[in-house]
């Protein structure tokens, strides 16, 4: 039986950062990715944090940066536009290339990266996960991979967590159903992202326009599947594109699900740890998960380094990661999960009221990033009926 220090399942940002960090420390790492090629197909809007934030994890390479974001525009259902100047707040990535660069960094650090290879089950010892059963899709062969610690970085699918008994299936209300077109059109914004709110546009979610190279943009939306009756996310996107970009040429379609739920009580078990979207580390309000996956991986790597050095991979030891994550990002995620329930249930006129107040704030020249807690306070103050909704959800 093949043996290694850590087996990591999933070649997304979370898995690759854990792999490169542990490999650099000299541990023996195997990274499994079931798809034939890392990062393909893309399942992402590709907008993320700033160059500065990203460069903490990998040196910036212009080949995977398609646009810089310097402003955000919120468009309320009634059409009011709230614009916020946010210099260098983020970038739009070529996500395939970005993921490939991260996996490349892991391989260069000494990790054994295996594509076409799916984890199809767990190896279980006495009260402890001891690796995975791996299937090589090229040869059709299944083999056992014994590891001191098993890391589920397997994204929204998250079967490692389910098999280990850490997570369960996602409730329908805990996932955004999302779809996006790569469009080509004249007059697309260059360095500004646009977010459209409204029940008719994207029930339980929002639509986005993220600029890419000149003349191109990712136009997509996510919906709460419990709020769309017989329609699909695609029906809403087709309507949106027809209304806002009637002359656009559609080049590609991307779809997917993102988790929109509060943090897990625990992300670990004996000999097993979850990271990234597999651990529900996404922002449940926006669906964004790239930066969170990178930060989750950073925290996970610290605890895993110690665990592998001391040989203690028990649940009790790995639990430090839970509290580290909660302190760093998890508490904010809890708030965002509540905000998701609240904001996405607002009627269009209530959203319009909030937009009016926000417009006032931004016109007063306060040059701060968008603060959702502030939106929430404003919402409670301005939208009639909202206090009731908040009360039912929060208390």
């Amino acid at each position, binding site marked *: 039986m093949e043996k290694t220090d850590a087996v990591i399942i999933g070649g997304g940002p979370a898995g690759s950062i854990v792999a490169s960090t542990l490999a650099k420390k000299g541990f023996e790492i195997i990274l499994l990715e*079931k*798809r*034939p090629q890392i990062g393909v*197909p893309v*399942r992402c809007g590709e907008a993320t944090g700033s160059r500065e934030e990203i460069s903490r994890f990998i040196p910036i390479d212009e080949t995977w940066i398609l646009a810089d974001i310097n402003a955000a525009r919120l468009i309320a259902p009634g059409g009011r536009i709230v614009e916020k100047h946010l210099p260098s707040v983020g970038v739009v990535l070529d996500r395939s290339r970005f993921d490939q660069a991260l996996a490349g960094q892991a391989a260069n650090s000494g990790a054994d990266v295996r594509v*076409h290879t*799916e984890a199809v089950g767990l190896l279980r010892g006495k009260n402890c996960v001891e690796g995975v059963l791996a299937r090589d*899709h090229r040869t059709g062969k299944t083999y056992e991979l014994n590891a001191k610690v098993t890391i589920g970085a397997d*994204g*929204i*699918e*998250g*079967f490692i967590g*389910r098999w280990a008994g850490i997570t*369960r*299936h*996602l*409730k*329908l*209300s805990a*996932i955004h*159903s*999302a*779809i996006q077109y790569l469009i080509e059109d004249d007059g697309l914004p260059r360095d500004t992202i646009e977010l459209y709110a409204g029940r008719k546009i994207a029930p339980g979610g929002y639509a986005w326009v993220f600029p890419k190279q000149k003349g191109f943009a990712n136009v997509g939306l996510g919906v709460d*599947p*419990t709020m*769309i009756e017989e329609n*699909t*996310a*695609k*029906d809403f996107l087709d309507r949106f594109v027809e209304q806002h970009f009637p002359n656009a040429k559609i080049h590609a*379609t*991307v*779809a*997917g*699900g993102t*988790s929109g739920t509060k943090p897990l009580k625990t992300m670990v078990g004996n000999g097993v740890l979850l990271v990234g979207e597999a651990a529900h580390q996404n922002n449940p309000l926006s669906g964004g998960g790239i930066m969170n996956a990178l930060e989750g991986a950073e925290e996970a790597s610290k605890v895993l380094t110690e665990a592998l050095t001391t040989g203690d991979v028990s649940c009790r030891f790995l639990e430090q990661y839970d509290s580290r994550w909660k302190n760093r990002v998890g508490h904010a995620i809890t708030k965002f999960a509540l905000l998701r329930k609240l904001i996405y249930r607002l009627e269009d006129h209530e959203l319009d009221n909030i937009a009016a107040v926000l417009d006032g704030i931004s016109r007063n020249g306060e040059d701060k990033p968008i603060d959702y807690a502030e939106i929430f306070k404003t919402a409670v103050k301005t939208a009639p009926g909202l206090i009731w909704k908040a009360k039912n959800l929060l208390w």
Partner: protein
Amino acid sequence: MESKKSSLVTTCRLTIDLEKCLSCAACPPVCHTGALNLSSLLLEINKELCDNCSICIKVCPTGALLFSETTNFKPQG
């Protein structure tokens, strides 16, 4: 939103419209029986596990999942 086994139907009637399926991975995580899996890039249904709860149909962004016939079926979502 949890679902229970339907007493009305016993065989899985879920089908995938392969023209529409983008292998996007939105459906496997909501399936409470673990009947859906993206094996590499192809979505597979384990017909023995599926209990026709219809939850996956609701999450699919492209409308690629459907029941082959609708008689006897009561959605439980």
